[in-house]
């Protein structure tokens, strides 16, 4: 028998876990939770969570009970306590069975990992279980009108007063801030220090007096982002994560987690798409002998699909090669860059394939899939801007991966 030289895994114990997980999923995942998720059923959780489908609530409760909304977090904070490999197996099984994610949340993908690394015990105990259970919906207060790619030039101020901070400032691109319960926020606590050295990371209850979130209408017609204004907002200093003025280190780590999560976000979009690219192309330009009639379009679609295949394999490879600490590191820049540029390419190919049917805005003459494709095409343009532009990702790769000089 020929050997293979791919790294072998702890096959026996993992196999057992796989079997067991699958059985549990089969027994506990409601049938309607094994269908593609419509846009209006995304389970974001939070104080004002709505469940259009009661099965979604049931499914969330069952997963929460096992800690499987946060499979690899420690059990003491409500997580599943799984190893990285086990968590991967669980994800594979859920994908294989078509189970929906029980909970989407910036608490799970961004804040949680950072609290585990930098938060104090009180903060972990207060926030992590509520994230796991989907009770609190978090948003992110990073960018400001004058601080985009140059995030560290932010000017939202936090001034100590007694046991509190008084916060004033103006954040922008706070995704879903109008639905969020809490916000994790970068604020300037030392205006005299160099710009990276006077920043702190604080947690703010959006219900605090003086916080106002105002949705921004986008070119796609969607309004997923807000401007968030802070006017003399009082926040306990106990809500500071890590040391004062050392928030930049935490901010960078959180950005790595964000990049990693954005890299898989485009997948979720794709999985929710009703129509695959090749379906749209076959319908849009017709078929000759069952093949896309336009050979130039066909070549471009194949090029995209090959790149996407290579990207999915890269994601797997980097996960398999990753060090045990599970922190994303600079490779997250590559993943974020490729994922977002691929998604933009996919949406441009959708338009090229569907022609004028892909450019309807609303009303008669276009079916809901087509309208959604138009909007998603426009929405995709933000992929390479949000969470660090593609230019920023290339800067990070050049500096931190390739070691090119400043």
């Amino acid at each position, binding site marked *: 028998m020929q050997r293979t030289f791919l790294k072998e895994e702890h096959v026996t114990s993992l196999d057992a876990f796989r079997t067991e997980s699958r059985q549990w999923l089969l027994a506990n995942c409601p049938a309607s939770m094994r269908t593609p998720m419509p846009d209006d059923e995304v389970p974001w959780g939070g104080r004002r969570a709505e469940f259009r489908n009661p099965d979604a609530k049931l499914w969330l409760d069952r997963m929460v009970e096992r800690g499987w909304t946060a499979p690899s977090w420690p059990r003491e904070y409500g997580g599943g306590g799984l190893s990285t490999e086990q968590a991967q197996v669980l994800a594979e099984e859920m994908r294989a069975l078509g189970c929906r994610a029980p909970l989407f949340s910036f608490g799970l993908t961004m804040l949680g990992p950072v609290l585990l690394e930098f938060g104090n015990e009180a903060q972990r105990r207060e926030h992590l279980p509520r994230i796991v259970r989907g009770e609190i919906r978090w948003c992110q207060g990073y960018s400001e009108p004058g601080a*985009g790619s140059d995030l560290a030039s932010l000017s939202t101020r936090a001034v100590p007063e007694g046991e509190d901070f008084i916060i004033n400032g103006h954040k922008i691109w706070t995704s879903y801030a109008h639905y969020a319960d809490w916000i994790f926020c970068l604020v300037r606590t030392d205006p005299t220090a160099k710009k990276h050295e006077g920043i702190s990371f604080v947690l703010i209850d959006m219900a605090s007096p003086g916080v106002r979130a105002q949705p921004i*209408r986008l*070119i796609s017609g969607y309004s997923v982002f807000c401007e968030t204004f802070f006017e003399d907002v009082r926040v306990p200093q106990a809500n500071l994560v890590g040391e004062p003025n050392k928030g930049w280190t935490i901010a960078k780590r959180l950005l790595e987690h964000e990049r990693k999560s954005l890299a898989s976000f485009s997948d979720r979009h794709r999985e929710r798409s009703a129509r695959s690219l090749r379906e749209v192309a076959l319908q849009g330009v017709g078929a000759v002998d069952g093949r896309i009639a336009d050979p130039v379009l066909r070549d471009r679609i194949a090029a995209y699909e090959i790149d996407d295949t290579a990207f999915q394999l890269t994601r797997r490879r980097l996960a398999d090669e990753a060090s045990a600490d599970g922190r994303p590191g600079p490779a997250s820049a590559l993943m974020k860059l490729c994922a977002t540029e691929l998604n933009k390419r996919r949406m441009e190919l959708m338009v090229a394939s569907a022609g004028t049917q892909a450019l309807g805005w609303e009303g008669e003459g276009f079916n809901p899939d087509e309208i959604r494709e138009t909007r998603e095409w426009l929405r995709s*343009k933000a992929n390479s*801007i949000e969470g660090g*532009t593609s230019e920023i990702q290339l800067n990070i790769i050049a500096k931190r991966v390739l070691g090119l000089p400043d």
Partner: protein
Amino acid sequence: MALALSSEARLIRDQAQAFFAERSPVRALRQLRDSSDASGFSRPLWQEMTELGWPGFLVSEVHGGSEFGLLGLCLVLEAAGRTLAPTPLLSTALIGASALLLGGSAAQRQEHLSALAAGERLFALAMEEGAHHAPSHVQTRAERTDRGWRLNGEKRFVPDGGLADMLIVTARTVGEAGNADNISLFLVPAATPGVTVSRRVMVDSRNAAAIRLDAVELGEDALLGEADAGMAVLEPLLDRAYVGLAAEMLGLAGEAFDRTLQYLKDRRQFGVPIGSFQALKHRAGLMFCELELLRSAVLGALEALEAGAPEAALLSSAAKAKACDAVWLIGNEAIQMHGGIGMTDEHEIGFFLKRARVAQQTFGDGPFHRDRYASLMGY
């Protein structure tokens, strides 16, 4: 002939640019969109354009036109492109007039050209039946009747279809979609019984329409050109349409580029204007090259069209192909370089991206025109 504008032409261009900047800036398009105006254009503004003589640029003085020619008209279209002004100029002044000049009988010209030049009668070319430009893909049927013709069929994505008083309709007597023979052109009043026009709200907020033709009865005089020889009119007509649209796209791309360049100079991050970053500089340089190539391609095609040169068809497809390249590159780069602010509906740059993609898909995208170019070159 030099490939540069005469001082007279520069005057026309400057006048048109000033007009659109003042009377139809991008916010006028936004207002039309937000007011859900059913026509997607402004009649009072059209009246003003009419006073400047633009609808009659191709029309002879006998019919009240100015005979300023295709180049002059395309300079106006370029200016309209710079502010994304939705005007019926392309459909009426260029396509409508050219259809009558290329295929119309003396009686048809007599009947329509004066009204067209006076801006009183609007035209639209009802040609597409699929989601991609395909002039010979015609399933709409034309049957002979005692008094003339009867049309049945469905047209899609007719630019300015909802405004037009007269439709220029392609239909076939026999044969199947895709076959370039047996296609005829008809002049159909939009008010004819059996014609149903439904607006389609596109991403560029203009007035595109779907048009149903249910047993539409027409007289003999509705035929434009020879029966079954519609392509002889349609092909040179489309060459002009390609270049007219390419001129509008040149304006669109030029303005989107200028705005982006200004943003690169104004927006500061890391303590410097972002336009000082070399990666962005080089990309701006490449956009500039695309724009210069497009400008030359449009002028070259106009020169050939005006001279009736044999390479006119070739250069028309080259111009539209380059226009598609340029608006794609510049439209996408404009958003990316504006960053988050460019994604907001409040900022105007997004309107350029939206119009760019519709214009790209109108009258053939890049691959369509490269295929046509190669075929015309014999390879």
